[in-house]
């Protein structure tokens, strides 16, 4: 394109490059130079335009096959997002509808059951009342403890002795010839209320060598009254365990295979 036609005012090649440039820059502009300037202006204009268009990065600078690729990408992304939307909607529906309400109901039911067993809630139902009249020094803690064991064996779900709720932490002791329940002395006449199947509980009290027999042998007297509607109102405050922590469910052992699980740490 640049033919070696010598120009009229050709600088001698012996000159330094910068001198040549300087001389050319100072040359008087002719008609041809104006045309060159116009072309260079066009080039500059196009250059700036193209740089801007590329920098804008819009789809307008892409070719057809590139656009097809972009379209493909967008379609795949849309499919992914739609799948995610469906999943999230399913989750939302599950949360909003019955399943979580049912879970809440179940949890409340469980809390009520545990509350009765732990003695933090009043209990009501059929059961027996064992009225005990003891002679001074005749009653011992082992007898009361035996009565509680018998009642539990017979399936008593809530027990109250002398107005004190009996739970897994209840203890009995002999102090000065009187039986105390968790430090509270029992009066000479008190009632043991147990909620469970009345017939079974009454039979458990009445077995030979059982609670009633033992009371009689110790100069005391026990009277069992079956009832279809008893209520136990005494409560026990719930204390958070100081040492025991809930173990992960995976290490829990079902009843019947209750081998001691060594703690891993």
């Amino acid at each position: 394109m640049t033919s070696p036609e010598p120009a009229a005012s050709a600088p001698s090649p012996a000159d330094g490059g910068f001198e040549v440039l300087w001389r050319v820059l100072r040359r008087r502009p002719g008609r041809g130079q104006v045309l060159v300037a116009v072309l260079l202006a066009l080039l500059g204009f196009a250059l700036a335009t193209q740089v801007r268009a590329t920098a804008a990065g819009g789809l307008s600078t892409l070719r057809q096959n590139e656009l097809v690729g972009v379209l493909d990408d967008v379609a795949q992304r849309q499919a992914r997002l739609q799948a995610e939307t469906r999943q999230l909607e399913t989750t939302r529906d599950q949360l909003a509808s019955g399943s979580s309400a049912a879970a809440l109901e179940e949890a409340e039911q469980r809390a009520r059951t545990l509350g009765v067993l732990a003695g933090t809630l009043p209990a009501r139902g059929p059961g027996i009342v064992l009225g005990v009249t003891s002679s001074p020094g005749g009653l011992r803690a082992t007898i009361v403890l035996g009565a509680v064991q018998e009642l539990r064996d017979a399936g008593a779900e809530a027990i109250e002795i002398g107005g004190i709720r009996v739970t897994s932490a209840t203890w009995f002791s002999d102090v000065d010839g009187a039986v105390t329940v968790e430090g509270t002395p029992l009066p000479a006449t008190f009632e043991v209320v147990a909620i469970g199947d009345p017939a079974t509980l009454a039979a458990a009290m009445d077995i030979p060598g059982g609670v009633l027999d033992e009371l009689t042998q110790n100069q005391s007297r026990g009277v069992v009254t079956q009832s279809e509607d008893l209520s136990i109102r005494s409560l026990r405050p719930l204390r958070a365990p100081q040492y025991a922590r809930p173990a992960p469910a995976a290490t829990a052992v079902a009843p019947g295979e209750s081998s001691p699980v060594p703690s891993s740490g």
Partner: protein
Amino acid sequence: MIAALGLVVGLIAGLILQPTVPLGLQPYLPIAVVAALDAVFGGLRALLDGVFDDKVFVVSFIANVLVAGVIVFLGDQLGVGSQLSTGVVVVLGIRIFSNVASIRRHLFKA
């Protein structure tokens, strides 16, 4: 002098006006710009060689741009537009490099 001024004026105009490239020109403008750059560097080299000529420069500039555009157009029609564009850019790039090397030798004697 006036040529350099023209280049600067064109750049500034492009930056200020911020025109959008017409849809029909979009595939051709980048190639045309590279072809024109090749012509400019060729002209600069001719200037330093002492053989610069306005007419030759103008003709080579326009011919470069037109040929580049035609090649891209043909490539698009044949379905090898992007490959052919790449080829044109590679060839022009090699020419620009050789021209710049020559210019460098003139200016820095190295």
